[in-house]
């Protein structure tokens, strides 16, 4: 496993549903700035929305005090987006109980995995929580 390049843009938002759109629009702008074509920007918006929604729901289940962290970096032929939660590892079951999010969970993973060029979930290097890394090819 090769470490991703150092982030060049960092963003922190409250773990609240209304901020998912803020993250989506900010990252779409970064994508356009980096020269991604519109179809790829649309895919990026979906992937970012999926991962950020999951992070918001996990942080809320964990108490809601911690923000969701987002990092954007342009590496070697690809864009790397990191979306990090502060879950303790037990929130996922709790998140899936509501009807609004229950059906969502399975669809979200399928959507995320097929819409980006790479995706991995790793433990946060700076303490509890998970980091979802999205890779988008950008030759």
């Amino acid at each position, binding site marked *: 496993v090769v470490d991703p390049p150092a982030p060049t843009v960092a963003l922190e938002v409250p773990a609240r*549903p*209304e901020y998912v*759109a803020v993250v989506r629009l900010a990252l779409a702008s970064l994508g356009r700035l980096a020269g991604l074509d519109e179809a790829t920007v649309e895919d990026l918006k979906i992937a970012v929305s*999926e991962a950020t929604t999951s992070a918001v729901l996990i942080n809320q289940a964990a108490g809601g005090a911690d923000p969701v962290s987002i990092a954007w970096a342009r590496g070697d032929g690809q864009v790397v987006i990191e979306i990090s939660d502060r879950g303790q590892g037990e929130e996922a079951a709790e998140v899936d109980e509501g009807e*609004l999010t*229950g059906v969502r969970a399975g669809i979200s993973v399928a959507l995320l995995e*097929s*819409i980006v060029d790479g995706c991995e979930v790793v433990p946060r290097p700076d303490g509890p929580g998970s980091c979802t890394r999205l890779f988008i090819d950008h030759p």
Partner: protein
Amino acid sequence: MELGIDVRKVNSCSVIDVKGEIDVYTAPKLREQLIELVSEGSYDIVVNLEGVDFLDSTGLGVLVGALKRVKAHDGSLSLVCTQDKILKIFKITGLTKVFPIHASVEEATVSPQ
């Protein structure tokens, strides 16, 4: 960011025209509208997605939930969508096999399935 929702009656169907972005913040509004329609006895529902700029798994979850509700009353839930970026999401998730998808409200309301 607000989600625009208008409900109208076309033939025997209830048509919901949705405008804006459907995500975890706005989806509850659509969900409440769908629940209200079913509780009022509307079991043939058409959701018009032509004005929708963005849709993710939260929106798909709401539509699947509504489909289960109308099916419990032998009803139907169909969609109107011609936008490639939205259709792509239904294709990737296999939901094109679950929802009848039409090119226009006229087409959707002539033959509810």
